[in-house]
């Protein structure tokens, strides 16, 4: 009985695979499908599956009509067929009942609907009138035009597919790498298999033959692994990852082709498919070890199942304790070896175990809704306005004059709600950094492999949340730095052994919150940064001069690696050191308003700490006043504020106004001159100086007054004011007015421009 069920299941799967690639009019394949349907019908009849038998008979009749040319519209015929097979699968899984099946048959005018209706419960008609009603409509629909490659609906479907498929590929990547660590993890195996299956199905539906083909081949490979006849090891992992890369290219290409309305460039997947084939064919050799190698966390342990199957508990216990002692073989294998159990018993127990854990996999989906970020931003705007409107009502003198305790309490409640609302809205933009980190696993693996390193990547604090927009922008620099750590940081296994270190190097990626920032730490136990070599290289590449050397601190020297045109790699490798490099990292981190700290010990390793603001939407600002205007300086670039003595002020020939602060001479920038506002104070010793820092350069900004520190939501000034370099954006202040957020670099530049 259960054997028959399995045969039916696999027949249906095969049918599904065939129907997906079925070309309308391809009589050869029609024949194959027909014979399979015949098989299915016979087996279902014998297995007491009347519904499936009915369906396969109907499909058979339908296909025969198609072959004989009685059915005019071949496209539609194939579609009906594929829907029919899908229906069969869902009936098989118990997800569809007779009523659904009857609806399907009626919708396509296939024989057998009446028969089912007669046999089905009376509510059948009332429950599902829709398919039957739709039938004439479906018939009346004009046959699809063949010459049109992309209709708008197709394009919509395609872009949906692309987005979904790329996501699937991402999860495949992550799970494949998991699989590499624990090849027996059935859960991970399924998580790799399922998305391939989906990609295969949808790409077939969209007539993306090459994608469909490759996905199908990979799915086969994984299916072998699922059935236990193949163990996913390094070679297979490589092939799957290569397949993911090619699929990604193909999917992107199909998107590009559709939007440019040109035919797709075909990809040659023959060699890859040949490799897949090879792996599948070699599967038989490993079968013996693979069969008992499945462990499921949710299902009862294998031992229990075996005991219930009549194996003496003592034998199982003995085998288990031997396993604990270090026997690296699976329990089933041990038992078979000892003669305590027959291989068939072990296999049976494994099957039961598999079946028991299967349905649980489905409930794992996280409940999420995808929202357009524009809508989210609008929501954020409105909530911000709500907070301001609320505080304006409370600040109204007439309201304040009311001494009603109820009103005061209600207003307090209102403000608590709005604050909570604002917090929640903000948090909607946040996503855990986990996904980005997990992508690094692949980066480390590939880089290590190419460079002959042995590297383990450890992830810490993956749950740390970060602004969604930020994650996307942060991906490239992070990848660059991780590659860099593997490529330049970690030594070759020989060097490591010679230095008395473990052969395998470790790169740690950690994320955590610290002082209103998200810190991302990239830590390796490699060779460390060589200050002498960095300085020598910087001199050679004329990034610094001999004079700069005297004042060059330890960390400043390390920071030289972020300068444009710097590359310490003696050999330009394929991976890093392509001329562009760490300077791009620095630029992106600047854009994200973050900063990098480096610490390193020669021979022991290097740690990069990238501090980023929690979100791009909010800036921690220092509000300063110049004349009647208020400006916001990013707190991250403010070093200190002070009122200097008159004697500290001087004018240096050719360098403009300077202020002596604790022994160092800093240029003075009159902010009122830059922003064009009439100040209330002109003398630095009567006004206030804010020392700001950017890329290691320090300047003093002359302002009237420091108002305070405030977190503000950054608003763009819009497309048309993009060219204003001294302003980074606007912020709605507590009184509803717009305050300008200054761009420190822009201010420095403007100052230099005025002087020069």
């Amino acid at each position, binding site marked *: 009985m259960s054997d028959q069920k399995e045969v039916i299941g696999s027949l249906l799967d095969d049918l599904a695979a065939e129907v997906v690639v079925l070309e309308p009019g391809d009589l050869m394949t029609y024949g194959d499908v027909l014979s399979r349907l015949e098989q299915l019908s016979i087996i279902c009849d014998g297995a007491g599956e009347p519904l499936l038998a009915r369906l396969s008979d109907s499909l058979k009749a339908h296909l025969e009509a198609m072959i004989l040319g009685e059915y005019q519209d071949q496209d539609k015929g194939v579609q009906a067929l594929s829907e029919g097979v899908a229906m069969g699968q869902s009936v098989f899984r118990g997800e569809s009942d007779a009523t659904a099946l009857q609806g399907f048959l009626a919708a396509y005018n296939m024989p057998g609907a009446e028969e089912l209706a007669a046999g089905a419960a009376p509510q059948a008609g009332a429950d599902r009138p829709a398919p039957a009603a739709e039938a004439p409509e479906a018939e009346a629909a004009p046959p699809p035009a063949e010459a049109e490659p992309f209709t708008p609906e197709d394009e919509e479907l395609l872009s949906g597919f692309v987005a979904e498929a790329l996501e699937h590929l991402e999860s495949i990547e992550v799970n494949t790498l998991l699989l590499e660590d624990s090849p027996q993890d059935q859960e991970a195996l399924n998580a790799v298999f399922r998305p391939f299956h989906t990609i295969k199905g949808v790409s077939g539906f969209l007539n993306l033959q090459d994608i469909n083909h490759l996905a199908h081949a990979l799915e086969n490979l994984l299916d072998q692994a699922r059935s236990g006849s193949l163990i996913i090891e390094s070679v297979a992992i490589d092939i799957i990852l290569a397949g993911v890369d090619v699929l990604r290219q193909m999917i992107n290409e199909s998107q590009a082709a559709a939007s440019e309305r040109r035919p797709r460039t075909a990809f040659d997947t023959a060699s890859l498919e040949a490799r897949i084939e090879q792996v599948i064919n070699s599967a038989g050799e490993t079968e013996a070890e693979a069969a008992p190698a499945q462990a499921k966390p949710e299902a009862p342990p294998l031992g229990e199942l075996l005991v219930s199957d009549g194996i003496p508990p003592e034998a199982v216990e003995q085998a288990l304790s031997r396993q604990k002692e270090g026997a690296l073989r699976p329990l089933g294998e041990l038992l078979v070896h000892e003669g305590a159990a027959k291989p068939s018993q072990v296999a049976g127990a494994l099957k039961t175990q598999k079946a028991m854990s299967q349905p649980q996999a489905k409930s794992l989906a996280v409940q999420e809704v995808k929202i357009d970020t524009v809508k989210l931003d609008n929501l*954020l*705007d409105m909530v911000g*306005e709500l907070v301001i409107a609320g505080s304006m009502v409370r600040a109204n003198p007439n309201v304040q004059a009311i001494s009603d305790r109820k009103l005061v309490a209600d207003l307090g409640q209102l403000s608590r709600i709005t604050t909570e609302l604002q917090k929640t809205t903000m948090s909607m933009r946040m996503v855990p950094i986990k996904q980005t980190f997990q992508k690094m696993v692949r980066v480390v693996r590939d880089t290590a492999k190419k460079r002959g390193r042995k590297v383990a990547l450890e992830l810490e604090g993956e749950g740390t949340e970060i602004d969604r927009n930020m994650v996307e922008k942060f991906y490239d620099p992070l990848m660059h730095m991780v590659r860099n750590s593997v490529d330049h940081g970690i030594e070759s296994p020989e060097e490591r052994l010679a230095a008395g270190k473990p052969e395998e190097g470790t790169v740690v990626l950690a994320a955590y919150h610290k002082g209103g920032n998200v810190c991302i730490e990239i830590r390796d136990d490699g060779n460390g940064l060589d200050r002498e070599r960095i300085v020598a290289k910087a001199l050679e590449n004329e990034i610094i001069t001999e004079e700069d050397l005297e004042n060059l601190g330890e960390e400043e020297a390390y920071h030289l690696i972020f300068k444009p045109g710097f590359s310490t790699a003696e050999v330009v490798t394929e991976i890093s050191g392509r001329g562009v490099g760490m300077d791009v990292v620095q630029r992106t981190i600047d854009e994200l308003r973050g900063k990098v700290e480096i610490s390193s010990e020669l021979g022991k390793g290097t740690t990069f700490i990238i501090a980023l603001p929690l979100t791009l939407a909010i800036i921690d600002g220092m509000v300063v006043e110049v004349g009647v205007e208020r400006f916001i300086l990013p707190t991250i670039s403010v070093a200190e504020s002070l009122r200097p003595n008159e004697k500290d002020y001087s004018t240096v020939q050719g360098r403009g106004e300077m202020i002596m602060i604790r022994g160092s001479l800093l240029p003075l920038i009159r902010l009122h001159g830059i922003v064009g506002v009439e100040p209330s104070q002109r003398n630095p010793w009567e006004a206030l100086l804010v020392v700001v820092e950017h890329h290691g350069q320090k300047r003093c900004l002359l302002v009237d007054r420091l108002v305070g520190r405030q977190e503000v939501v950054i*608003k763009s000034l*819009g497309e*048309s004011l993009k*060219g*204003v370099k001294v302003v980074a*954006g606007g912020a709605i202040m507590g009184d509803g*007015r717009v305050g300008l957020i200054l761009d420190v670099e822009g201010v420095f530049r403007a100052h230099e421009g005025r002087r020069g």
Partner: protein
Amino acid sequence: MNQEPVSQEHDDSSELQAKAGRDVSHLAGKYLTFFLAGEQFGIEITKIREILGVLDITPVPQTADFLLGVINLRGKVIPVMDLRLRFNQEYREPDERTCIIVVEVTKDDGRRILMSMVVDQVNEVLNVSAADIDATPAFGTNLDTAFIMGMAKTQGGVKILLDVDRIVQESRLVVG
């Protein structure tokens, strides 16, 4: 008999169009009219998002003189230009009749820009038919004719129909 003057008029206008070298019939529609420095102007109602009284304007450095600054439109920051200054007229201190008209235009690349303009006083919404519109004369007004789509002859006098898209897209707001 009755039809003759009508067709005459029609001939007249098509003659005018031919002279000006462009068709103005697509300009027919609803316009918001307003006063600015003694003249009356019209902006297509479809471009207008809303009309506000005077609010606090935050000046922005490194911008053209006619850009008064930015305002907070319910949480969005949008630029404000003074149409008087834009058309090289004398600046006028705002009073209780001064209005800010918020317009939205779509750029060639499909992106939408919000911009607001200070005018002396908003007048009314007017339905202008194609027959009432003349192509832009090359004289008679002291503003840049590039920003004028046409002239509407109405009972209340001649209204200059402004090409908001061009004003928004071709005004250089940033200097230096």
